[in-house]
């Protein structure tokens, strides 16, 4: 395992794509901070609650291309021929993807901390909580992208699938969040204290609300969107458990399929 991780990380260290994506993610955060400074915004929380989305997209691109290259260049055969077990290869790749996401987070946070904290403001406790929970969300994303890349041997195909998944899941997360954020009552007429309210027909209640809430919390992208629109609203601390569950499920499925896969 250590040998495979060392080999993967050495390749990453020399990868132009990896460092370019780190640069793009850092630039994204930098531009956001500049806008905040220009608009005289004094709360940096928005820059932090958003962090999962750009890193998720960068991870989708990098993980697909990095592991896809093992198939396209045939180098995965070198690992198998010399006797590395398949589930160890899979696990090493999953850990590699998590480490990559970690470095992307550091790249994103660099301008936030260096520029944002001094020129915009310090983050709230809620934003720090979201940062901690979001890190676990990224592990679930890593598990998903690793699964696709390891099962589907076509580099271009895996990249397209992972990117489509990344954006599709964000859209689904946005739709689910918009249902959950519907107010229970909506005003019909009147002004000020004289407003009259009726029940919102789009408000989800009972079992439906529980189901949509659970689905949104299960989806890593649902969590990412939730951080932006709902902040650290409870139940925030159950989200890492969902992410770990989803990550374990994706990794198990991926490792089992990869174990049985005929490699050419």
């Amino acid at each position, binding site marked *: 395992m250590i040998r495979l991780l060392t080999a993967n990380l050495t390749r990453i260290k020399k990868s132009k794509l990896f460092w370019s994506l780190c640069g793009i993610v850092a630039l994204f955060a930098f531009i956001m901070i500049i806008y905040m400074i220009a608009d005289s915004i004094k709360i940096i929380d928005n820059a932090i609650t958003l962090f999962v989305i750009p890193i998720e997209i960068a991870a989708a691109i990098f993980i697909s291309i990095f592991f896809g290259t093992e198939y396209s260049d045939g*180098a995965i055969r*070198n690992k198998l*021929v*010399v*006797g590395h077990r398949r589930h160890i290869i899979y696990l090493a790749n999953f850990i590699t993807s998590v480490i990559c996401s970690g470095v992307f987070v550091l790249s994103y946070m660099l301008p936030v901390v260096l520029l944002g904290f001094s020129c915009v403001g310090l983050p709230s406790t809620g934003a720090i909580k979201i940062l901690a929970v979001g890190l676990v969300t990224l592990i679930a994303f890593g598990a998903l992208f690793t699964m696709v890349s390891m099962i589907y041997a076509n580099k271009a195909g895996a990249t397209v699938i992972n990117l489509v998944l990344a954006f599709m899941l964000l859209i689904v997360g946005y739709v689910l969040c918009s249902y959950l954020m519907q107010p229970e009552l909506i005003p019909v007429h009147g002004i000020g204290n004289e407003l009259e309210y009726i029940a919102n027909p789009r408000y989800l209640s009972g079992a439906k609300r529980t189901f949509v809430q659970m689905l949104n919390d299960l989806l890593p992208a649902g969590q990412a969107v939730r951080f932006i629109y709902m902040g650290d609203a409870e139940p925030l601390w159950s989200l890492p458990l969902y992410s770990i569950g989803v990550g374990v499920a994706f990794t198990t499925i991926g490792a089992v399929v990869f174990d049985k896969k005929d*490699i050419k």
Partner: protein
Amino acid sequence: MEYVLQTNAVKKEYGRYKALNGLTMNVPKGSIYGFVGKNGSGKTTLIRLVCGLQRPTDGEIEIYGIGYKDKAAINARRRMGAVVETPSVYLEMTAEDNLKEQCRILGIPSFDGIADILQLVGLGDTGKKKAKNFSLGMRQRLGIAVALIGDPDFLILDEPINGLDPQGIVEIRELILELNKEHGITVLVSSHILDELSKIATHFGFIDGGKIVKEMSATELESACRKRVAITVNDTKILSRVLDESNVEYSIKSDTEAEIFGETDVTELTLKLHDNGCNVQKMRERNESLEAFYINLVGGKSND
């Protein structure tokens, strides 16, 4: 005889298609084993199974006497290297970096032997040139260099001369011979070009329809393909005596049929047989080429 690789009744099915159909083969230690078969006969499939890229549907594969399901098979695999179909190299890396990467995969802490391996395969002066800019022959040699990391004593090369120019073919041939003779590496080399394999192989396995149809040594193959005269006489005992007196190599097939190897002076032989009271009924020259031998072995067109 000690064997590096033995397979017993190996089958591999892809859906309904049987790529291997009970293949049994034995690769002796120290040999260059020419694995010959036409395209689609199952050569690459078997190599994939031996390398652990795929699992057999049925049958047994033993590397150094250890079955592929055995936990110790992992250690046995560490003693082998392979180039399956295309060379497995990172195209964005230099030759040296590719070898270093394989060292890391194998957990070899030192890169000391890399320069020697690159020199051995003739890539010692490629410097910072990336593998994507290499010629096909150079990539093939780099693939072999990667397979040589870890000092294996069994090397599998799948169609190593495919697509190479004559110069490249000669280089690969010489490299295989050097690895076998000077480094004692057993080499399993597959190809559909029998003529090329016949220049280096010490043993042959002929595969057709997912089965080994014949295994033989190079000496046996040479003898099977030798120039000879098939002769039919009324008494092979007399023929045998005459040939012994003339110190000619021959093989008696029956009471009336025999084969005489090498160049034969037909007139002189006929006169001698006549003097000894032996009648020559039929005489025909046979000069079977390697290709003809192979076609006869696998049944020619009927198998296409």
